[in-house]
């Protein structure tokens, strides 16, 4: 029953966000587009967390996705948003497929630190490479979507609408995945790897597949973010960016595929408001928010929704 509710909630949220496309002010659309992009990365992180793993290095795939998309537009001259999203996702998935072979063998702090280390290698490489703009990065500009030319002025709204549809499509797919045998198997691995092996299933394979999926989602999120911001820089792969994703994941909780988007939106709003009205203490405000969540809602904001349903 709750599964149907989630599908319904996804549809409603998608509809509301789409309806906002022609009406919302630019700043709100920008905030929402960024929240959707980050929500995608966190969706992948939630998948890993459901398998019992926390990655402090999703910035690797986020940055790679952003740079792949940006390079396709700037250097290869293929400034098509759909192609850029595809490229960002594919590059991230390919790298995750290689690194996953190693990382799927590690757990807990070793997994977290190794994933962090890999992301910092990319960051270091980007900072040192002057051809890619070094610490400044570079700008990008998409001229079409799937071959359809975009009139300037409307392009942001079109990107936003497309991201809404794509992101919610992906969220629905992940929702289906989590409710499937492999989704339950992921939870089983988090609970008791030993028993999973003793029942005859390969823990390594499930962890690997989930890792690659999370990488692909982060790459897609990176491409979306690059399109929304119109600029990429090494910060996308920096550890604080990865930490931000973990923050958003904990803020929302792993209870539902909608939670990452809700918490990403809250996070972005909090950051926007806090950096405007309290620019010197905005990080502290986020820290306090995090402490409050851990102390009072250890299952994340989503537990509030569940409590409401139960009431």
């Amino acid at each position, binding site marked *: 029953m709750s599964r149907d509710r989630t599908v319904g909630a996804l549809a409603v949220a998608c509809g509301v966000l789409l309806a906002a496309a022609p009406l919302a002010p630019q700043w709100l659309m920008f905030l929402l587009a960024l929240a959707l992009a980050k929500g995608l990365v966190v969706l992948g992180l939630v998948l890993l967390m459901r398998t019992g793993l926390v990655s402090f290095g999703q910035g690797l795939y986020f940055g790679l996705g952003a740079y792949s998309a940006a390079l396709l537009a700037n250097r290869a001259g293929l400034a098509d948003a759909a192609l850029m999203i595809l490229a960002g996702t594919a590059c991230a998935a390919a790298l995750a497929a290689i690194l996953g072979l190693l990382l799927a063998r590690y757990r807990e702090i070793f997994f977290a630190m190794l994933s962090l280390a890999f992301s910092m290698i990319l960051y270091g490489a980007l900072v040192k490479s002057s051809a890619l703009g070094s610490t400044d990065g570079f700008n990008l500009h998409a001229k079409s979507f799937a071959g359809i030319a975009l009139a300037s002025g409307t392009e942001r709204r079109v990107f936003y609408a497309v991201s809404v549809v794509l992101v919610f499509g992906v969220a629905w797919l992940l929702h289906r995945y989590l409710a499937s*045998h492999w989704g*339950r*198997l992921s*939870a*089983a691995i*988090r*609970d*008791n790897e*030993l*028993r*999973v*092996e*003793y*029942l*005859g*299933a*390969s823990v390594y394979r499930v962890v690997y597949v989930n890792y690659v999926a999370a990488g692909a989602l982060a790459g897609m999120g990176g491409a979306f973010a690059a399109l929304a911001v119109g600029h990429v820089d090494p910060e996308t792969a920096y550890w604080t960016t990865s930490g931000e994703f973990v923050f958003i994941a904990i803020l929302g909780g792993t209870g539902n595929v909608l939670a990452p988007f809700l918490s990403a939106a809250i996070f972005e709003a909090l950051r926007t408001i806090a950096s405007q009205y309290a620019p010197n203490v905005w990080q502290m405000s986020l820290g306090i928010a995090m402490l409050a969540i851990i102390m009072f809602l250890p299952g994340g904001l989503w537990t509030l929704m569940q409590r409401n349903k139960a009431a």
Partner: protein
Amino acid sequence: MNPILVAQGVQKSFGAVSAASDLNLSFERESVVSLIGANGAGKTTFLNLVTGYLKPDRGSIRFDGRELTGHSPREITGLGIRRSFQIPQLFHSLSVRENLRVAERIARIERVEQAADAMLEKFGLTRYAGQAAGLLPEGIRKLLDVAMALVAMPKILLLDEPTSGVAADEKFGIMDLVMGALRGRGVTVLFVEHDMDIVARYAGRVVAFYDGRVIADGEPAQVLGDAEVRRYVIGEETHA
């Protein structure tokens, strides 16, 4: 005679402690064998060696002529050797039904829902079906642990203290249930047990362990009457 499981010269030590020293055991097809011994005698170590969780320092373990040492628990499970655990190994955040469903799907059981329903009923778990496994009372956790080992019919079933933690008046019930489910299916059963009444009633053969060695092996009446067994195994039990 063609034994299904043969251990030859198996040795395993943890530092200075010898958990298996030169074990030579063979098990006939469809036999029901109880492994007894005080805590630390090497019974669970033997199960861990057979299922690939531990690798022997020396010796070989062959299943149907096939070497098991060096293979993982997953591969050995795939060959048809399944086990339950002394401390129930469950998926605590999943419900009882989901635990069974995961086990059944991995074992490629068809019609998972019906199979889960049948299993829940057989083990008297129907009223707990929706509860998270982590919140179950110990006896029920044990039942679920055994039920999960039985979702697919194994060739060899290893039960590690299947009745520990279960209320005294339900112990025979569990064993009746398990043995009933296996009857006529050609399954070889090895079970570790501390309750000598259970051993005497269900085992066709008893192997007594002490200090990583086998000190007696034979028919239940003979082994349970053995002076060494009475001193080192049963004696310790009654004074424990």
